[in-house]
């Protein structure tokens, strides 16, 4: 190991020691790492449930677990993955760590609130974990009434409470980011000099602040209906269960953009860095993030086309759904154009970025199938929908998250990951992913309903393919877990700017000092201006 560099320079990791210094830290970088541990845990919990789902579906007659257990498996899989892994993933880990650095701030505007957000996620997670251990919950992650309020015998309340609390974590993170972006930018860091990752997180935060409270109150109403019999959605009293769906999707559709926008921000950074070119159509990508955040609030009814919602409302929601597709299209085309005449290298983050663009395109375009009314009546609540959203969330966001982790790992830890292994694992993940979820498009169109424990035998072949893919996927995900940990001790020491990137985070040491910069930076260049990077700072590995 390179002892010359390894001399102890003070940084955020070694500035103080002991468990307490971590649990009471107000440093956004340390909090980012706390989040990293937490959500990784939940990813593996969710992944374990996914594994059980896939094993169960190997055979049509369902002989491994009971129907009751199966229903709990997919519910808890989704709860863990969505609320405790994917929503906090990129914003709370990478955003927390890098957003302040990228705009040249010493910390977020409200560090204590930031720490509180993490604790809220942990407490919410504890409630949900408790529910899972105590017996699980079987309503599906959508908690439709009256099943969830009146009929389910499972741990609905504990789980819902967990989600409620985690919701506040999400709200407060969003609030913190917005204030930070407005008030904490370094001198010279104008709005249009901000990296696109910051724009993406800003747009995400808008959704978190505007949408999540509605989920919170929906859970409160569910809670009072289940516990105190205040029946706001109760059909026996003239209440309307479809109203619950409106309130739920008012949040949960925008929430899918909470899950994808930060990923898009990561992709912008990676694509630019590894082609050494400023992002094509910077302003268009920046504004399309905000446009997605805003338009995302107008389309929720596309989850309810067969729910008994009025025909006319369905038409409106279908029409508006197509508007969200345009900003996404703009991004995809601009990323592609960025490559033109670039200087492209294929390091692992770039491989993930390519994976993201491809799989997001397929996932997004199949979203357009679902938004088409006549098509949706056939494929809604089938595996077609399952395939659609896994393409975006697992194929898209998960790729972006892993890409981002590889991209910034040297900065976060001061160590390089092993490039060869990383490339191999990205390939395994890509192949495993497609084998898992592509067959599900066909399954869905053939008519296999989702949330089915038992299924007709003619669907078995495709299900076996899917399970085979999932095993490959599991191996692919296990690899980074192992070599990241390995690299902490044995990885090459990371230079300040291993990729020759332009962001402010690459102008400070790896790992960064406690207050991010030895000297508050003064920004004089546009983002992604590769001529501005002093050649001596780049030590390309």
């Amino acid at each position, binding site marked *: 190991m390179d002892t010359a560099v390894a001399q102890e320079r003070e940084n955020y990791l070694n500035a103080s020691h002991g468990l307490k210094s971590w649990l009471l830290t107000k440093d956004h970088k340390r909090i980012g790492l706390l989040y990293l541990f937490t959500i990784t845990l939940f990813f593996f919990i969710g992944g374990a449930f996914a594994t059980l789902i896939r094993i169960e579906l190997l055979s049509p007659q369902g002989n491994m677990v009971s129907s009751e257990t199966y229903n709990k498996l997919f519910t808890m899989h989704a709860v863990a993955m969505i609320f405790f892994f994917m929503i906090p993933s990129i914003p709370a880990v990478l955003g927390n760590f890098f957003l302040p650095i990228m705009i040249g701030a010493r910390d977020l505007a409200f560090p204590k609130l930031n720490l509180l957000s993490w604790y809220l996620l942990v407490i919410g997670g504890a409630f949900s974990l408790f529910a899972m251990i105590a017996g699980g919950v079987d309503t599906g992650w959508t908690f439709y009434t009256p099943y969830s309020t009146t009929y389910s015998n499972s741990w609905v309340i504990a789980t819902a409470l967990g989600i409620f609390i985690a919701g506040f974590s999400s709200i407060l993170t969003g*609030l913190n980011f917005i204030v930070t972006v407005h008030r904490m930018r370094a001198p010279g860091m104008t709005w249009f000099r901000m990296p696109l990752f910051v724009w993406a997180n800003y747009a995400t935060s808008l959704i978190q602040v505007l949408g999540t409270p509605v989920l919170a109150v929906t859970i409160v109403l569910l809670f009072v209906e289940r516990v105190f019999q205040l029946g706001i959605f109760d059909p026996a009293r003239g209440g309307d269960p479809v109203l619950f769906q409106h309130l739920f999707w008012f949040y949960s559709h925008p929430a899918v953009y909470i899950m994808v926008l930060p990923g898009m921000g990561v992709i912008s950074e990676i694509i630019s860095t590894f082609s050494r070119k400023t992002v094509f159509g910077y302003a268009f990508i920046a504004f399309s993030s905000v446009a997605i955040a805003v338009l995302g609030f107008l389309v929720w009814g596309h989850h309810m086309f067969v729910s008994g919602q009025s025909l006319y409302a369905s038409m409106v929601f279908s029409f508006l759904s197509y508007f969200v597709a345009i900003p996404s299209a703009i991004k995809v085309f601009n990323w592609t154009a960025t490559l033109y005449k670039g200087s492209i290298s294929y390091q692992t983050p770039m491989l993930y970025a390519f994976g993201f663009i491809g799989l997001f395109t397929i996932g997004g375009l199949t979203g357009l199938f679902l938004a088409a009314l006549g098509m949706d009546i056939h494929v809604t609540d089938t595996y077609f929908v399952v395939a659609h959203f896994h393409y975006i969330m697992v194929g898209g966001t998960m790729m972006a998250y892993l890409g981002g982790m590889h991209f910034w790992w040297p900065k976060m830890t001061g160590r390089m990951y092993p490039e060869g292994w990383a490339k191999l694992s990205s390939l395994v993940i890509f192949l495993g992913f497609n084998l898992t979820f592509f067959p599900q498009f066909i399954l869905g169109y053939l008519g296999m309903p989702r949330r089915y424990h038992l299924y007709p035998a003619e669907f078995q072949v495709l299900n076996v393919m899917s399970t085979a893919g999932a095993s490959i996927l599991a191996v692919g995900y296990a690899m980074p877990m192992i070599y990241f940990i390995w690299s902490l001790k044995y990885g090459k020491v990371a230079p300040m700017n291993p990729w020759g990137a332009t962001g402010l985070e690459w102008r400070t040491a790896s790992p960064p000092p406690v*207050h991010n910069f030895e000297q508050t930076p003064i920004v004089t260049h546009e983002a992604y201006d590769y001529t501005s990077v002093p050649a001596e700072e780049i030590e390309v590995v």
Partner: protein
Amino acid sequence: MSNHAHSESLELRVQFDTAEQQRDASTLGMWLFLVTEVMFFGGMFAAYTVYRNLYPEVFAICSSSLNAVLGAVNTCVLLLSSFTMVMAVRAGQLGQQKAIIWFLILTLLFGGIFLGVKAVEWKEKFDEHHIPGQAAFHLEGLQQADQGHAQLFFSLYFAMTGLHALHMVIGAGILLGLILHAKQGRYSASYYTPVDVAGLYWHFVDVIWIFLFPLLYLIDRHLGK
């Protein structure tokens, strides 16, 4: 790091460069928090709108069963508390340390009265069996068939006023904290942000009630009874 002087105020936290930046951040933070509150109550307003639209007559009769005079008086009490709150902020602006304390105490007092009256109203509902979900639920003047819809009204009534009251209780807690800090002489003309920000919250809770009052007590009251 280099260019910030620690002397401006004891309360300037490390991530900020100037006291002004810090104050602007806190204010913006509170306003954003209020946005989340608007959406939080918004979910219930949406439910209310849907059901009022479906069952207007029943809702009118239910409204009539509430005590509008008590509601109006209570509204005035709350408005008064908002007034004393803004006076406390004004005292902060002028650095009148004593006045801050007294106006905060008055605000707390009016808030307490509001909650007391609310409790009396709720008690009444319990005595009259206007509690949704209870087998004994019965609202006079309504057919058996409409009792269910009346229960919807009262579910919304309790959910909305209950969560409003919860916000008041939290607000009262914040006021208590402010009073303690004010007693320690923490606030001055150059640093009164906490009072300012708490004021925003308190007024917001007031605004919610300004809408709850007509929605629950007043609209179409002439139709009932």
